[in-house]
């Protein structure tokens, strides 16, 4: 009787396994074709015949998550997690559900459990990809400190991989830590001096720290070493222009500074002419409300600003720069990107907000 029962059970298990395989294959095909509703039904049918399959439950949870059925997906995953709390695939799926629910604390926990858990294969690659996903999640939720900490860990865990370190430096820059970002790019450049991405990144980090001339040099080198990105070329031009226009350069004498302020003033005038012509038509036309501040600031300045006047009335420098910066900011938001000079002035304005 044992033998007969054994044969019956074995035959049935084989049949079950075949049915489960067939449904699973159908589910995977439907999931790949983004037909998640059908895929869910297929995976459910497969699970009837292979109820303990972790992989099937994971796939069903994935399909359910894509379909927005978070409760059921989470229940499946939590159940799996109870049995295997260190399974990174399960924790990653749970993290993704938490991301979709904007539950930052849960997402952080599950991402960390996924990173430091057990991966069935390619643990290093998967851990790195999970960390990137976590950093992007932090950045999207303005958790800059957390993103910065993860980015530093990412760089520290991959000391010999310049690509990863460049990515970490990119994240640091997005997290607002331009100094650390620049330092990280420079470490990469010590390993690979010709790394175009690191050079371009260094340029961006230098720009973010207000080192316009240094940024221009990095951008230049990036272009020389094969960076094809047109954005880099514009960044180089803007940073070169900003270096030449920056009135706060400590090496400048009074005359030099006044010359730069006058250039910026002229550029602002040109910007006003193209973007807010109404401001130049005197009192004939009423000024819209949003431009009244600019108009009032302009009235406080002489009609024709000259080097002589700036030398006679040094307090005009500050007033003139404030007007220039406000013009460029307003024009940028209302009329879009202007010339390289306009972009350079805006950059300088960004660096010297308090001033």
């Amino acid at each position, binding site marked *: 009787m044992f033998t007969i029962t054994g044969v*019956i059970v074995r035959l049935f298990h084989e049949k079950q396994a075949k049915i489960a395989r067939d449904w699973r294959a159908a589910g995977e095909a439907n999931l790949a074709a983004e037909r998640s509703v059908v895929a869910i039904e297929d995976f459910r049918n497969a699970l009837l015949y292979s109820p303990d399959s972790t992989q099937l439950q994971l796939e069903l949870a994935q399909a359910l998550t894509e379909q927005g059925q978070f409760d059921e997906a989470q229940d499946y995953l939590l159940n799996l997690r109870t049995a295997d709390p260190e399974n990174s695939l399960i924790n990653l799926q749970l993290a993704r559900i938490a991301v979709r629910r904007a539950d930052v604390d849960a997402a952080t926990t599950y991402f960390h459990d996924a990173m430091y858990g057990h991966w069935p294969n390619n643990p290093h690659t998967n851990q790195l990809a999970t960390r990137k996903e976590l950093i992007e999640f932090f950045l999207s939720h303005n958790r800059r400190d957390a993103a910065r900490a993860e980015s530093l860990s990412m760089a520290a865990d991959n000391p010999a991989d310049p690509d990863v370190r460049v990515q970490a430096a990119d994240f640091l820059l997005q997290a607002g830590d331009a100094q650390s970002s620049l330092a990280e790019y420079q470490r990469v450049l010590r390993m690979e001096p010709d790394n175009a991405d690191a050079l371009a990144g260094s340029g961006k980090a230098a720009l973010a720290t207000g080192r316009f001339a240094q940024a221009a040099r990095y951008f230049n080198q990036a272009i020389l070493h094969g960076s094809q990105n047109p954005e880099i070329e514009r960044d180089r031009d803007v940073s070169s222009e900003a270096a030449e226009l920056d009135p706060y350069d400590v090496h400048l004498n009074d005359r030099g500074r006044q010359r730069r302020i006058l250039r910026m003033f002229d550029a602002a005038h040109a910007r006003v002419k193209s973007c807010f012509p109404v401001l130049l038509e005197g009192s004939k036309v009423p000024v819209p409300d949003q431009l009244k501040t600019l108009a009032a600031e302009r009235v406080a300045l002489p009609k024709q600003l000259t080097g002589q006047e700036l030398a006679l009335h040094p307090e005009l420098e500050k007033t003139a720069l404030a007007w220039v910066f406000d013009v460029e900011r307003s024009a940028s938001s209302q009329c879009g990107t202007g010339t390289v000079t306009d972009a350079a002035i805006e950059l300088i304005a960004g660096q010297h907000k308090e001033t």
Partner: protein
Amino acid sequence: MPENLQPQANVTSTAGANWWEGLKRSGRELTLREDRLFLLLAVMIGIFAGLSVVCFRMAIEWVRLWLLRSEEAPPVLRLLLVPCLTGLVIGIIVKRLFPRVRGSGVNQTKTAVYISDGYIPFNTVFGKFFCSAVVIGGGHSLGPEDPSLQIGAGIASIIGRKLRLSRENLRLIAPVGAAAGLAAAFNAPIAAVIFVIEEIVGKWSSGILGAVVLSAVSSVVVMRGFLGAEPLFRIPPFRLAHPAELLGYALLGVVGGLFSLFFVKLVANLRMWLRKWPDWTEYVQPAIAGLLLGVMGVWLPQVLGAGYDVMDQSMHGRYVWQFLAILALAKVVATCLSFSSGAPGGMFAPTLFIGAMLGGSIGGLEHHFFPVLTGSVGAYALVGMGTLFAGFLRVPMTSVFMVLEVSGNYSIILPVMISNTIAYLISLRYQPVPVFDLLSKQDGLELPSLEEVREEEPIRVENAMRAMSMPPLRAEKTVTQTMAELEKNQQEWVLVHEKDSGWHIVKRAELLEKISSAPGHLRLAEVFPRHWVPTVHADNSLELPLRRMGDLPFLPVVHRANPARLVGIISREDILQTYAKMGEEEFDLPSPS
């Protein structure tokens, strides 16, 4: 234990040789005692019952795959045809070949134990196996547990008959098989043992308990060997964050109790109504039920079959609470149709299903209005299973242990106990006769109601005892003091208490005769004739003094904390009068006077 089960010592003694003496000693040690052999038989029954239940489950699955295909929601045509046609085929087979396999299996087993002396014929076991597999696999809303119980009991009965067990032991062996069958079907040995004790045997005696436990354990071991040790459901994590959350489970208990009443009334009334139909309709009743079930299945395929997969999914948030409530109602209707039509199959799985859906819907509803509650819908579904089990099947202990075993989570015990108790009490209050007893009464059988036995208020000694007009004599008193006390009273019998030997009963005349010639300063202990009497306590059952009394005129009723203190006496007349009075009150009998 019957004679033929006693192993015979097959070693012949040969004097002189030491080695032979050693061998003899070993032989004696190996000789199995009667009770051990009974336990061995229980293990054997467990193994065979386990194997049968595994085959039974496989048969159900094969039939389902063959008839309804592998999809969760079978094609419409099959849904409409398969339950109807299987119902028709099984209706004819049951009516013509296996009339004893109709219905659940629990009552048939009780009938076998209490009416047929444990006799369950082989064709009933085969018929139950075959018909239940086809009916359940064909989509009828019935479960495999009760048939497994009957199959287990039947296998035990067959083995018992093969071994020519006595009638008494045959009666005893059927519940052993029943426990094995149920344990293997549920993968829950403790719940199975308690159910058999609670519902079939009705008493906890060491003789039966050991055998029932061993058979249940061995059948589960066999079943797990073939089908794996996984529980029936993937249980969701559970934690009780705050005691106030128990109120939510109390509400589930109330709703579960009321739902149980509805379920019992519906199944009992539908069954009675169908019984009034002409006899020939018994051939087609399962087919009609199957057709209606198939129509339901087009919209709600979840109600077909035992429904374990659906229960599992309901615990993991697949369905919204409104749909769970619909499923609970639909399953009640579907199960009543299938069961009342006479299709062979059990009520356990449908009860669990209804409980899970009801629990899930109450949990979902509570979450909707009180999102702070931490209990998951799955936890409510799990507790709901036990609640319906307690309310519908009226097996409170089994319901608690079943949930614990199925969940493997002892932290859920508080909600389970609260909810189950409330449901049980509501059901007990508004439905005096439990469902199994109701069904057996409908079948014209007077099986013992074990719930009645449980719930029965015992008649105690205190209900019948009276005060003794004369205070008892103390053996440490002097003869003079005793004479003075005897003169005050003219009772025929007197009680004497002696510190060391306890209570004695003496005829007054005999005592007077003994002490009248004795010096007055002597202690009574030195002269009185000793006739020791057993004592009883006021809280003892009234049967106890009857058993202990013998030819004595009465027994002393003494205090439990101070056995020297007499609280009253009880005589045979007192007992009989009390029983007569009880009979008058219970059955409105005319007074003997």
